[in-house]
């Protein structure tokens, strides 16, 4: 029972991290119709920006996390506005551009920081003991930040004019534009929001997990897995799927072993997609 509770907490913590990451990925697909292959790159960049701010500038970790999120937000905005926007309706071009950006980011990081994982530790350590189980403090802090982040994104998307405009563009871009909504501003803003979330997650999570130039690959794969499971473009679906993946990963790692855990996860997703190919909350997200 104690092991079950501890595993649940780990699963919830993982799920919250994945949700924050996958929300950005699914937002970009739902609103812009772009599969952002650079999403994992922004996660890595967020980690390295926070690491650099702490290590070279002596910033407090909390401030470094904010700077990392802002840095990836700015880069995302500029990339969408000046590069992606020109070819936004050409799926192959957007795929190649985001993939190219990811390769540039990971190669650039490799050149600047080298292949080794830098020593980047979470500033808070220790554990909280419960009735027979314990939880690392850093996991709880990250869980708290992720939950605040997820709720903020929900508030932004469902209770603000900005979110309403983004949802309108996701439903039917042409008609939304004819109502006066400005894709020239809203698309870069949506992309920046998503890349900011990836950077925030990277800055938060890499001190606990690991930081290296090529860790963006599994991050991208996990994001893909989650948004496919939740239903492409569905914000709610991505969140639920992230927690399912987090729990599945935690339980399979504990009860089946590390390598079998990943296999169990992919089998779970495969079964889900056979039963419901559109994902848990899949629906048509882009109008004609």
């Amino acid at each position: 029972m104690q092991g079950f509770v501890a595993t649940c907490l780990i699963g919830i913590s993982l799920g919250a991290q994945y949700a924050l990451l996958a929300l950005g990925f699914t937002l970009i697909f739902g609103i812009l119709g772009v599969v952002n292959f650079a999403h994992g790159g922004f996660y890595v960049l967020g980690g390295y920006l926070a690491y650099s701010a702490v290590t070279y500038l002596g910033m407090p970790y909390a401030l470094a996390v904010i700077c990392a999120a802002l840095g990836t937000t700015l880069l995302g905005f500029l990339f969408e506005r000046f590069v992606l926007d020109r070819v936004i309706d050409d799926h192959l071009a957007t795929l190649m551009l985001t993939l190219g950006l990811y390769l540039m980011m990971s190669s650039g990081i490799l050149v600047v920081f080298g292949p080794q994982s830098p020593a980047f530790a979470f500033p808070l350590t220790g554990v909280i003991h419960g009735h027979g189980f314990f939880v690392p403090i850093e996991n709880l802090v990250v869980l708290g930040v992720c939950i605040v982040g997820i709720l903020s994104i929900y508030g932004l998307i469902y209770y603000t004019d900005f979110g309403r405009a983004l949802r309108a563009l996701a439903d039917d871009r042409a008609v939304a534009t004819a109502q006066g909504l400005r894709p020239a501003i809203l698309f870069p803003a949506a992309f920046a929001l998503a890349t900011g979330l990836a950077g925030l997650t990277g800055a938060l999570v890499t001190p606990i997990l690991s930081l290296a130039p090529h860790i963006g690959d599994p991050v991208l794969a996990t994001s893909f897995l989650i948004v496919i499971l939740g239903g492409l473009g569905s914000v709610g679906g991505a969140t639920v799927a992230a927690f399912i993946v987090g729990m599945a990963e935690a339980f399979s790692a504990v009860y089946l072993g590390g390598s079998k855990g990943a296999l169990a996860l992919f089998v779970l997703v495969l079964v889900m997609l056979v039963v419901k190919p559109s994902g848990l909350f899949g629906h048509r997200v882009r109008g004609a």
Partner: protein
Amino acid sequence: MLAVKDLEVRYGGITAISGVSIDVAEGETVLLIGANGAGKSSLINAIIGLVQASHGSVRFAGRDLSAVSCDGRARAGIGYSPEGRRVFPTMSVADNVLSGACWHGGASQRQAWAWLCGIFPILKERASQPAGQLSGGQQQIVALARAMSSFPKLLLLDEPFLGLAPVWIAQISEAIRHMQQRGTTILMTEQMARPALKLATRGYVMRGGEVRRSGTVAEIRDVALAEEYL
């Protein structure tokens, strides 16, 4: 208010409209009638900027719109209700309606919502329901309310009565009269022109992508009768 001159729209190698010139004076309600494929929607789409004209000009309130984006035209005061309603299906009725005014600011949105709920009580009753779940007539009301919510100077209505039951036609007609009383200029298209002719002050008949006839409502009614648009 609106001056379209020698407009041509092409889709690849196909010419949808050619040499179309129309004028709509301030406060007028002008009707475009014609069969399916006559070019009415292409003309409306070119005015709002959803399709690019290959030739000719569109002037609105004295301003050439050639270099103005679609969203810029809406913000300049052109409201648009598309053919086939095209509500945002996953969004609530309230969000649909207010999406047309969300660049106006909170006070204006509240004012628009209160005004529109007065005209269409169903908006308040169904405010939180996804618009994709509504009937065709209800969706047309949402699409019209969305176009009206920004208090446009010019309202483009593309087939607002298409496929609607008489009860909904009456409600839509009533809403258009509201806009007329506010002094809004209206350009609307219809295939079945009977309800639209009751609202219009002038009209144009389109066929094969060209304007074939223009005139008063009485004159257009004669053409409509002859060509079975009534």
